[in-house]
């Protein structure tokens, strides 16, 4: 098998892109950092969903994403229904018609990226809580069953940027986490627990920055 591209493939869904919009990290939008850090691939459903969101919310500022999306859009090279049948059906996963189409196609894109030697593992970036947080959510079930990679949400990505870039200041990172958390919604308890958890992890990185600064040399 020929040597693969060493870059990491990241498959963001529509929600995660929209939730990261306008979040300033070192004078650049967090969305654009995705393209700087990873090989971003999105299914052809994502541009459609993005446009639908803009149609519903004309004030939604997605120009920064819209410029990047066309070059990252990948169409599945195999039959969609057949591929879903092969991978989802054995796990007992069934869907209602066109629901979650963006996430479904992105998941199949994960299989394609690995099978076609594009990458070894993927980062599946989604803020779709229902599909991920419960044990029966289809994305969680799929990634638990098959060795495709990891599932991140937008807050994980911000933590990653904080780990990678020392100039990303603590206060700015706290604000960024807070901003994304408010966009991800949920019950008051769920939002509170999520913000607490991620701030706790941020504090761990912050402590490490001070105690083992050579880690970043």
């Amino acid at each position, binding site marked *: 098998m020929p040597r693969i591209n060493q870059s990491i493939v990241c498959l963001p869904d529509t929600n995660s892109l929209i939730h990261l919009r306008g979040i300033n990290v070192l004078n650049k939008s967090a969305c654009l950092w995705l393209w700087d850090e990873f090989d971003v691939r999105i299914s052809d459903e994502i541009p459609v969903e993005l446009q639908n969101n803009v149609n519903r919310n004309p004030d939604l500022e997605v120009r920064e994403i819209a410029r990047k999306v066309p070059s990252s859009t990948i169409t599945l090279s195999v039959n969609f229904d057949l591929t879903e049948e092969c991978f989802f059906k054995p796990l007992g996963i069934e869907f209602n018609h066109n629901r979650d189409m963006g996430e479904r196609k992105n998941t199949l894109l994960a299989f394609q990226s690995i099978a076609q030697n594009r990458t070894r593992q993927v980062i599946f970036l989604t803020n779709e809580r229902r599909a991920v947080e419960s044990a029966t959510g289809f994305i969680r079930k799929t990634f638990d069953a098959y060795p495709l990679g990891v599932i991140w949400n937008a807050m994980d990505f911000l933590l990653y940027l904080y780990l990678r870039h020392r100039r990303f200041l603590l206060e700015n990172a*706290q*604000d*960024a986490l*807070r*901003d994304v*958390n*408010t966009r991800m919604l949920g019950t*008051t*308890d769920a*939002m*509170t*627990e999520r*913000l*607490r958890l991620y*701030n*706790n992890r941020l504090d761990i990185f912050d402590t490490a920055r001070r105690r083992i600064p050579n880690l970043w040399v």
Partner: protein
Amino acid sequence: MMTPPEDREHLIWAGMTHLKQELDEKFEAAQQGAKTQVILNRGPFGGGKTYALRYYGFTENLPKVKGSKVRDVFVVSVATPKQTAKPGEDFYRNVIERMDMEKIRDAVAAALHEVGATEGMNKLKEITGSDNLARAVAMLAQFSDNAAENEPEADADESDEQKRLLEQYFFEGCTKLELKKLGLARNIGNAQDQFRVLGAILRCFIGLVPGRDVESHSRFCLWIDEMEDFVYFSGAQYRPFTQGLRDLIDRLPGFFTLLLNFTLTDPEEFETLEVIMGKALVDRVTDNVIFREMTQSEAIDYVDDLMRHWRMPEFGEKQLAPHFPFETDALENLIKNLPNRTPRSINKKCSVVLEKALSENKKTTKPGDITIDLDFVKSVAATELDQEF
């Protein structure tokens, strides 16, 4: 009742004697001392925090103290603003509205009259950090009804117009022309300005007399409900608001009580508080009051107190059971099987049982006729379970 009442008649304190004692002690200290208090009230959903806010909002419910005490106590309550782009600014407007412009004018007039205009202005400048904002606050005194009694009669129409413009200044801001009419250089700017103005106004209620002599000052209590909703604020919304609250505390080093209600079901409580409210605000907390769940016996006392409040005068003559209309084992069973023993849970469950008992018996009911026994309570529980599934 599932939501706390607002009218005085229904605001009684039932059971929860330790909690009442704790809160009373805080308010006693507030009346007898100069220290600024930042009291964090935390507990589960339905635990009584909003009820306490409404109860103590009526100053006749404050504990009576003897000896040296403040002249007056003002209690103003607001909820954390919701669904707003600028919560700090909305909070400022809500507090001003709750205080009532007429009372604000009177308080400013009284405060300035007590220390004299010059010293008063100096104090206001010190608190606001701005000559313009200080002058705006001082101007409120001119339109106090008390001031009007002492001043020669001016042109009524022009005076009304100035009064209206000044009120507009504090709420929405004025055009350049309107500012010129008022003799002011600029509007109240951002949230930082608003909290400074709030600080100055609260200080007028407290009194501008220097020193910390208790009898020369009043106490201002600002009670904020639903602080857990700070989780909904973005970074840009959250920082000016929490900074403003911190500034308020720092600018009012005496005779100010800030009470913060926070619903918390998290085992990692302290960490959560710091994340949601910010470490700087949490660090300024001087007292913690925990609205914990009641024990079995406390819950029964609570129900008894509530029932006692609503008893008809004839109750004593009828020799009825102590927990009437509940039989003892029925009430004990009801309380024991609650998911939690908060006032809301107890109220909700008792309401369901009482309503069902009344609806089944109303045709034959005379006062004292209905009793709720253990079988009835169990049958209601079984019906609810069936409905759930």
